[in-house]
């Protein structure tokens, strides 16, 4: 996935580490009207102080027809539950979807998902009753949060009339914290020093994780889950409160 630079249009409620998602879920459970969303929020969220070793996680990856959620749709969703010790790939799920917007030839090449496969696929609305319970109560893990969070919010809004928002740990952001703490200095530029790549594959290779063929939703989800396990075991204590990681 591309890193598009510092985010300017993040529509999340806030972007700092003091987020109290537990409280937010409680509020939403009372406000939302659609039963699917009510179920989702009433499952609750862990406290911000919970150590990461006790947090139920779910890695998700969307393959989309393009980068902007406003005029592109989701082609497939991959999902894998995990925690600090184990990635439950045996419980991974994947859906192929018919996007609201046409599949471009370019995205066909990228995802290797064809027009005919997509035309037989269901709409997201039929998948939501399966998908949302798998996300409920868990902290989502993605590599570059704008895609999954924005696409799901936009898509759910269209189908259910209300939007959805949940805490996310962004493995790309965790890499950026380490490698983009400061911009390149004039000296670095003079030396033709390159920015360290924080793309999924490049990040994984720094932790000796094997290269995977990209743009397959389940594989990308597993790849992010592995990356987070690696990041946490190298740089964070198991007792780190989740508030330091999510946003």
């Amino acid at each position, binding site marked *: 996935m591309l890193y598009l630079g510092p985010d300017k249009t993040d529509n999340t409620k806030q972007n700092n580490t003091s987020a109290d998602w537990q409280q937010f879920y409680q509020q939403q459970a009372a406000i939302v009207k659609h039963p699917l969303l009510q179920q989702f929020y009433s499952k609750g969220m862990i406290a911000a102080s919970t150590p990461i070793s006790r947090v139920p996680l779910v890695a998700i990856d969307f393959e989309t027809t393009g980068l902007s959620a406003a005029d592109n749709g989701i082609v497939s969703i991959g999902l894998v539950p995990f925690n600090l010790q*184990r*990635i439950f790939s*045996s419980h991974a799920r994947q859906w192929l979807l018919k996007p609201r917007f046409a599949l471009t030839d370019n995205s066909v090449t990228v995802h290797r998902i064809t027009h005919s496969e997509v035309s037989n696929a269901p709409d997201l609305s039929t998948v939501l009753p399966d998908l949302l319970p798998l996300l409920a109560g868990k902290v989502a893990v993605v590599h570059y949060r704008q895609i999954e969070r924005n696409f799901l919010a936009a898509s759910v809004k269209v189908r259910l009339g209300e939007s959805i928002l949940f805490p996310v740990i962004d493995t790309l952001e965790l890499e950026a914290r380490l490698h983009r703490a400061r911009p390149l200095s004039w000296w670095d530029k003079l030396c033709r020093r390159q920015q360290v790549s924080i793309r999924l594959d490049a990040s994984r290779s720094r932790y000796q*994780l*094997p290269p995977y063929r990209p743009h397959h939703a*389940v594989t990308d989800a597993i790849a992010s889950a592995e990356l987070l396990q690696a990041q946490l075991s190298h740089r964070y204590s198991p007792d780190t409160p989740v508030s330091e990681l999510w946003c």
Partner: protein
Amino acid sequence: MEIEQIEILEFLKRHPPFQELPAEQLKQVALSIDIGYFKAGSEILRFNEPLHALHLIRSGAVETYRRNGDLYNRMSEGGFFGEQGLLRGAKVRFPATALEDTLIYFIPDETFQQLFDENEFFADYVQVGDSERRKTSKAGSQARADLLGATVSTLLSREPVTIGSDASVWQAAQLMTEQHVSSLLILDTEQHLAGIITDKDIRSRLVAPGLKSEIPVTDIMSANPVTIEQQQYIFEAMMLMLRHNLHHLPVLKRQQAVGVIAISDIIRFESQSSLYVVSRIFRQQTVDELQALVPDVHACFVRMVNEDANSQMIGSAMAAIGRSFKQRLLELAEAELGPPPVPYCFLALGSMARDEQLVLTDQDNALILDNRFDPKLHDDYFKQLANFVSDGLAACGYTYCTGKIMATNPQWRQPLQVWQQYFQNWISQPSAERLLHSSIFFDLDGVWGQIQWAEQLQQLVSNLAQKHPLFLASMTRNALSRTPPLGFFKDFVMEQDGKQNNILNIKRRGTAPFVDLIRIHALAIGSTESNSFSRLQQIIAAELLPKGRGEDLRDAFEVIAMTRIRHQAAALSNGEEPDNNVLPEQLSEFERKHLKEAFQVLSNAQKFLKFHFKA
């Protein structure tokens, strides 16, 4: 929709034993796998903890340990661990630590057990420490050639033609003509086999000396002939015929003759058989002609390997060929130098004497002379004889012995009584040099002349050695100076102390220490056998080792010996000079795994030896 674990599946397809599984089953395995990341240095498994999954290394490297903290194994991508624990009570037996940042695929116990029960190859590959698997591993596939897998009974096409021991040669010859056979069995009054005659016997023992055909057939028969049981393997028949230079071999079933197999029956199986090479050796008239047979010897070696012969078949076939070269050279030498002034016995030593010869071998030999030997009068003859044979052998690919263990060395060209004194001194007052001599000369075989002298020396060693614990202890200390490596890691040889080497000398680190170890046990029980497998059989029968250990040793020795043999056959096939240096990258995962286990057996046996002989 149905989910596909593309990456997991592709990984499994690249690694044994998973790659051998049917596609549908492999897909299910891929779907059952969970994953975990372990930073370098972190603990993966702790001793005696409950174990729920087979651990397959997706990337990185892992070390496993014994309970006492000794390194047990080091593995990289594609390696797996935890199988022993799963097969024995679902508890961790060998704790594991990540050596590098490591990604592990967890195959749940349930999936593992199902594969283990349903798939024989998988079970064979995974099951560790079970001698059954080391056995199957040495061939890796079914013996293809009938010659190696079939029993003698399959060669029998007709009832044997027999005659009573009261018959005359004339009656015998008539019967042979009637029945169109080239050999005839002679039965005694109780219908037991008494002897055999052949066309050649009639020609050379009756016609040539000018005897009358009315004489009893028993006068010219070969009495008490070498025989074989009908359920024995054809290769065993072949070995017997090679060993005794026979053209006809009576076959018995419960002491009754049920047929005869002729050399032609076996040669029909394959024209490049060792029997064929041996028969050609005896037809050559000069050293140059003998030398021209060397490519045939190599072809025969490669062919046996390709046909999945075991190390015993190959070792004894090559020894038989080597012995035949010596015998023919001695015949040619005597023809040139005239008959010997006093009787002598030509000895083969080392691998040829043990029937464990390969293509790459030097000539270890010696001469036992009659006690009437007088150096001033006779040594000139024997010196020339020794030189003729030694040079001839060198021409035929058996290089000169760098340690000068050859009959050309006056020290090793001595009367029987001197040899007896040598052996007594070596055993009663062992020194470093004498121990070295013991390990070479105590594997001896008489190949020509007064071979009973060789047997006398063997008997002497067998009587003396077991009465000299100090000698056995010294031999043990010597034998323990060469240890096997721990196993393999990536493209390196792993040593016991964690060091890594690029090359494995399979002889120095494998077969040689094995042979040494077996020899000491054999000496301790007074065995007069030379072949390592025959020695092991006696050691097992003597119950010297804990139950099952002897069988483990036999299988492990076979694995190591075959690795060496295959390595040399591959070199010959590629037109390269064969050697003993195995590069780890030339070994398959399968071979590495079995070699590692075989080294483990050797290492444990060395510890037992050290303890047992108080070295």
